[in-house]
């Protein structure tokens, strides 16, 4: 079983994307998938977490993800308020949306970190809501590139399933750009 923990802020769409990733995983051949919000208070701008699980058999664990294989950080401001490496399994990876170099990130040196300018991908694709770039779908491309757990094609299909055609095309483009700019 692979466990993914999402770190985002209320309104950034982490919960939505945790579900799209589950759909993409199912389409990539994982017969057991779940995705859930963290079960706590949620308010716009406050740090939140969500989770996605995938396995070759039905998922029977419903408690919170505490020992993730993959951690996804939607923006690097979260590194100051959340501990993304907490509970990370040996060999795990932290994927961070940032333009800063790895050495500047407050993540222990022995942790594998993959960075990508996901915000740039979202802006380039025109995924902007209320003047703010939405990175939650773009970063699905980075997850596909960094983990190989899901294919880019399955991510595109899952996004197409989650949005009306117009917005879906932009979000798919953002995920493609993030896939390409992720140095895994």
């Amino acid at each position, binding site marked *: 079983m692979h466990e993914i923990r999402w770190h985002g802020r209320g309104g950034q769409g982490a919960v939505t994307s945790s579900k799209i990733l589950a759909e993409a995983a199912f389409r990539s051949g994982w017969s057991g*998938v*779940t995705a859930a919000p963290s*079960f706590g208070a949620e308010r716009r701008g406050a740090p939140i977490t969500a989770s996605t699980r995938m396995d070759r058999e039905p998922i029977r664990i*419903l*408690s*919170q993800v505490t020992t993730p294989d993959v951690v996804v950080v939607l923006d690097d401001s979260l590194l100051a308020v959340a501990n993304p490496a907490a509970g990370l399994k040996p060999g795990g990876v932290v994927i961070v949306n940032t333009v800063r170099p790895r050495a500047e990130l407050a993540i222990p040196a022995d942790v594998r970190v993959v960075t990508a300018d996901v915000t740039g991908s979202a802006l380039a694709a025109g995924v902007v809501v209320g003047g703010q770039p939405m990175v939650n779908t773009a970063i699905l491309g980075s997850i596909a590139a960094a983990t190989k757990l899901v294919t880019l094609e399955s991510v595109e299909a899952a996004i197409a399933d989650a949005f009306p055609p117009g917005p879906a095309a932009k979000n798919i483009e953002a995920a493609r750009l993030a896939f390409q700019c992720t140095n895994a």
Partner: protein
Amino acid sequence: MTTKVITGNEAAATAAKLARVQVIAAYPITPQSPVVETLSAWVESGELPAEFVTVESEHSALTVCITASTVGARVFTATSANGLAYMNEQVWWAAGARLPIVMCIANRAMAAPWNVLNDQQDSMSERDAGWIQLYCRDNQEILDTTIQAYRIAERLNVPVMVCYDGFLLSHTVMPVDVPSAEEIDAFLPPRTAPLQLVDANDPRNIGPVTLADPRADADGVVRPGYMEFRALHHGALLEALDVIPEVDAEYGAAVGRSWGGLTWEYQLADADVALVAAGSLTTQLTLAVEALRAEGVKVGVLGIRAYRPFPAAELRARLAGKQLAVVFDKALSYGYEGPIAGDLKAALFTAENSPVVFGCVCGIGGRDVSPENLADAARRAIADLDSGLRDRTPDWINLRPEGGAR
């Protein structure tokens, strides 16, 4: 049939659509709200040809369902926690009026303190109201059970609550096989109700005062007194002990999936210790069983699907010869113990070869409980039994000492 990766709430809404419900009335409350949000979108788009009645409260939501069901409609509603409590008067009315209403409960903790997270105190507190209560272990069972519930309800004229854990299932996506409309139409034909429409040429007084003793109505026909009505109602709940498994088997024949009827088990046959629960805890208990069996401890899961009627005889049979039953309740009868633990002890009292029953309380107000926590609680219960204990107060799993309680 197609497979969709959906939440428990979406599974419930999908079931209501497949059941071709005609009237929906509900008031939003977390974590149930997405059920009726989904249904209202389908009504608005025309995908679901039903009447969606918006109301100002849960009490009115169930009242609308009562009136629509009285004149023959197939109706649906859903709620949680304080919404269910606000309905309480009409919960009893729906049951006593013998209306085949199906209501999904996304289980949530009761306030105060205010909390929107999962436990099962809300529906467990309605156990005596005369509804059938079915608990679901995953999103697939939510869809299948909600459809089955209409067939059970309409056969017995008893309302059914389909209960599933808030957030843990209501807000968690997982793959769900969605039957085709044709499959469900064959399984669940349109409702045939005794009173289809109110007819001006055949005036009726529905719900008159019913006195203690039987008496003749205006046509001279002797009608039951209140106590006879209640005895008939109790008889219908006992008949449900047969009807629930029959409908589950019929659904299995029609759709290819069934869920064990009243109860189900996992690796229980050769077990010395049974882990007993209702709802999504039972899914996690199967993992606890595998961990304990790897240590050589012979344990199994006994899952309760029907909590009312309480399947006492079936539980006695499944537990005969076991040494210990560890019950995991997500609710509490304050000042006594968990509702399932108490009911199970009563069911086993004087039974031959019955196990010791130890209760646990867990997951209250959303407190996280993992398969490891459940396995640890089973180990503690086994140690208590080995130390000679035959009764104990509930074990509060994951109670945090820094929170001030012991």
